[in-house]
């Protein structure tokens, strides 16, 4: 059935487009009520949903003798019970002209991350203000977040006009107070509207406000022109998936994030600088004559170029920045504070790479916009940071391109999304620092020693027996004629790391430096035995990633805390118990046990000599040393 024979309903919908918006406001400003009202008055609430609503209103409702529309959107049980919105909810409605996706987000400060999530994909924000309370701290916070996330169009919905007698003076005063602030934030349009979500004034139909001559909220949402897709911006195409069904076809599947492209147009792989031309723009419907922002396509090129997932194809006329260091606004989303120096993962475009926050310039007070000095970012903090990635990445400033300028930060250990970032600009300081190529490498240096270079990393609680076992292992290896080095946590702290303490950040830096030293020694061809408590999994993974596959052998010296405390060979547990040492691992600081160590030594089961034998056996099995 083609469109021509389709009927009236389909014809009406043929020119429809999509608007994504977010509603924000503080907890009692009536966001959910407004959405419920929009859905109800545009007849998008079905009868069975309405009767469920009446049932729920009687049970949980906060509005007397009335249907509580908020219950319609607060979907989780906990939300209905507590009468608050916890998470982002997406609601859908449509008119003849437009489809709408609404992100309903919580207003509390502790849910800043949820608001940022809702705003990240929105074209427009409705900022609700209670007419009785006027512009509040929250109003400013929500506006700032919307602005940071790149929203350019704002509706200032002055709600609960019924409670101020639909008074024009009240409305005008609020608008006059908001406008200068909103203009500072760089919004392209700010449209003030007096409404009553509870009674429906100016939501869909004109309300009890004869002095207001503008459109109703829905009229405005139907008509507002937003940027939508970035057709006029430079061409950007992150390669998502290489489509290679057979030897004769090699296509790059992905979605055009900005610009327009056609067959024959030149393209550049941003990170490598390799060039080619578009041969075909393929979709299921066949080759296309052009593709533009928002189109999911498969590109074939005229040349064989080395391209993989994560690469960004761009127009040669306007290239993105390529750098391994940049400055960005970061929103922290985890209960665990950001640790500068720790290796996280960043997802930027279709590329995943290691990322480290190398410095926090300042934290933004979301209520006053003041810049505050800080060493870390906690949950819901927004900071301006310098970051370094594991490899050079291609990006545009977020202000110019939301899709190529955004990234998320993932914790390596928990895999949680712990942060979101918006790139401000690249830092090119490192550009003139090049690698000096060396003619003799790790392989040559270790071959002459008849061994394979490796890091053997002993981790475990204080007093678990790490150093004891490592020392025996080194004696054995030495006796076998192997070239070794033993790095001990205590010893390193006397020199290289004597400026470091025992806070989480200092522990991270301690391991980072020690890992780098161990890596240098493997490049010298040595078998490097490292004995460090190293309580955090993320840092152990970071060291593992410094060296090649199979060159990092993690040895978990597994001694129960009670046993370590009983031995207390250095008397440290006694001091910790007496409160003389802070942040003592296992006591008042965490130890993240390895989940899949290469060698797991349960020390209660056998003496240290037997443990050392197990390590030697495993090193032999892994062909780091050859059997004797």
């Amino acid at each position, binding site marked *: 059935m*083609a469109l021509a024979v389709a009927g009236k309903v389909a014809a009406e919908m043929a020119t429809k487009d999509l608007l994504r918006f977010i509603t924000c406001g503080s907890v009692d400003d009536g966001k959910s009520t407004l959405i419920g009202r929009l859905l109800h008055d545009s007849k998008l609430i079905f009868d069975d949903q309405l009767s469920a609503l009446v049932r729920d209103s009687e049970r949980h409702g906060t509005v007397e003798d009335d249907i509580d529309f908020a219950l319609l*959107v607060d979907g*989780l049980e906990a939300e209905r019970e507590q009468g608050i919105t916890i998470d982002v909810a997406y609601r859908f409605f449509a008119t003849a002209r437009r489809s709408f996706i609404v992100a309903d987000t919580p207003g509390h400060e502790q849910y800043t991350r949820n608001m940022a*999530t809702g705003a*990240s994909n929105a074209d427009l924000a409705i900022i609700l203000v209670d007419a009785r309370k006027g512009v509040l701290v929250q109003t400013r916070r929500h506006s700032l977040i919307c602005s940071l996330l790149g929203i350019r169009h704002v509706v200032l919905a002055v709600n609960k006009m019924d409670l101020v007698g639909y008074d024009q003076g009240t409305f005008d005063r609020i608008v006059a107070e908001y406008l200068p602030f909103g203009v500072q934030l760089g919004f392209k349009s700010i449209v003030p509207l007096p409404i009553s979500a509870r009674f429906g004034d100016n939501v869909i139909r004109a309300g009890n406000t004869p002095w207001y001559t503008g459109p109703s909220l829905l009229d405005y949402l139907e008509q507002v022109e937003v940027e939508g897709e970035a057709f006029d911006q430079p061409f950007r195409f992150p390669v998502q998936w290489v489509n290679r069904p057979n030897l004769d076809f090699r296509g790059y599947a*992905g979605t055009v994030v900005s610009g327009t492209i056609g067959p024959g147009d030149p393209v550049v792989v941003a990170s490598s600088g390799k060039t080619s031309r578009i041969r075909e723009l393929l979709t299921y419907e066949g080759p296309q004559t052009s593709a533009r922002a928002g189109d*999911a396509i498969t590109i074939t090129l005229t040349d064989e170029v080395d391209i993989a997932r994560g690469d960004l194809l761009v127009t040669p006329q306007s290239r993105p920045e390529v750098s391994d260091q940049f400055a960005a606004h970061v929103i922290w989303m985890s209960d665990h504070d950001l640790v500068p120096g720790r290796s996280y993962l960043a997802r930027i475009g279709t590329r995943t790479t290691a990322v480290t926050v190398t410095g926090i310039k300042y934290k933004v007070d979301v209520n006053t916009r003041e810049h505050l000095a800080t060493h870390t970012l906690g949950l819901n903090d927004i900071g301006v940071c310098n970051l370094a990635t594991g490899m050079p990445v291609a990006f545009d400033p977020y202000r110019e391109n939301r899709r190529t300028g955004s990234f998320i930060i993932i914790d390596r250990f928990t895999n949680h999304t712990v942060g979101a970032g918006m790139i401000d600009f690249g830092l090119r300081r490192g550009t003139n620092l090049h690698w000096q190529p060396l003619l003799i490498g790790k392989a040559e240096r270790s071959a002459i020693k008849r061994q394979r270079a490796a890091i053997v990393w002993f981790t475990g609680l204080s007093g678990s027996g790490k150093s004891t076992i490592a020392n025996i292992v080194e004696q054995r290896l030495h006796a076998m004629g192997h070239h070794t080095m033993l790095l001990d946590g205590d010893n390193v702290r006397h020199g290289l790391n004597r400026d470091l303490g025992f806070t989480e950040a200092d522990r991270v830096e301690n391991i980072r430096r020690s890992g780098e030293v161990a890596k240098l020694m493997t490049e010298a061809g040595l078998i490097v035995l490292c004995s460090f408590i190293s309580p955090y999994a993320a840092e152990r993974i970071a060291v593992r990633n410094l060296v090649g596959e199979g060159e990092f052998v993690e040895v978990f010296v597994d001694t129960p805390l009670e046993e370590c405390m009983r031995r207390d060979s250095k008397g440290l547990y006694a001091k910790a118990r007496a409160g003389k040492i802070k942040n003592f691992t296992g006591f008042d600081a965490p130890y993240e046990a390895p989940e899949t160590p290469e060698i797991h030594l349960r020390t209660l089961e056998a003496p240290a000599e037997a443990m050392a034998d197990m390590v030697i056996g495993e090193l032999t099995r892994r062909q780091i040393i050859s059997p004797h």
Partner: protein
Amino acid sequence: MQGGTNPPREALPGHLKRLEAESIEIMREVAAEFSKPVMLYSIGKDSSVMLHLAVKAFHPAPLPFPLMHVDTTWKFREMIAFRDRTVERVGANLIVYVNREGVERGIGPIASGSSLHTHVMKTEALKQALDLHGFDAAFGGARRDEEKSRAKERIFSFRSPGHIWDPRNQRPELWNLFNTRINAGESIRVFPLSNWTELDIWHYIMLENIPVVPLYFAKPRPVVRRAGTWIMVDDERLPMEPGEAPEMRLVRFRTLGCYPLTGAIESDATTLDDILAEMRTARVSERQGRLIDSDEASSMEKKKREGYF
């Protein structure tokens, strides 16, 4: 199946084009990031659209993952026939999984009630099937407009070992940057149709000429009145109440599931255009025809936490 007969791209209105591209992007993301994905294929209209989008996403390559149908053994016969035709037409790999232990225990919608039947034959069966094959990502055709707790679910929805969903501890999902990282034993449920509405689905089916199960179109069918809705007598397993006899009524289905649990509506909508016109005036949501959702308050959220799709 090169789509030469499909209408040109311009036929899609802007909002459907955006939804289509978003779904394709999600599917490609899964193919690129996971080692063993699977597409849960439940035969209904949403699955039809999801499968159609998948074929588009990977063209000209074949689907890089199998389809899987968790069969409760109580689906409409026409659904099973349609499933087998579709799989052949698309050339996909289909896994059919039945919880044999449930069958042996005699679990069924009539003998055991909808709640136990759904738990054992759908939720438990699904978990068994996912574990058996070791799938690390599973596509589902759920939409956020279907139900309140679905409205809060992520597009890439994390499941801890045991397939548990923790709605209070979901990963934030910003822009189109999906966090696909999991440890061994964990998995992700992926919902590429999250942002589609029921109307979008039908509109797209019409414009793209996508085959759907004939049960969606009105036809005289043998039905009995149960719990305020029409239940089709699809085979001899549906026991008649004393004095009850099937009558022929012009009915159709808005959603499809186990036939004794799926209510039909009286309708004369025999074409896609009729269906769209009918939806314009519909006053009840599609899930109202499902007897399983109203078992208890918050029942969908509860089922989902336990591993239901």
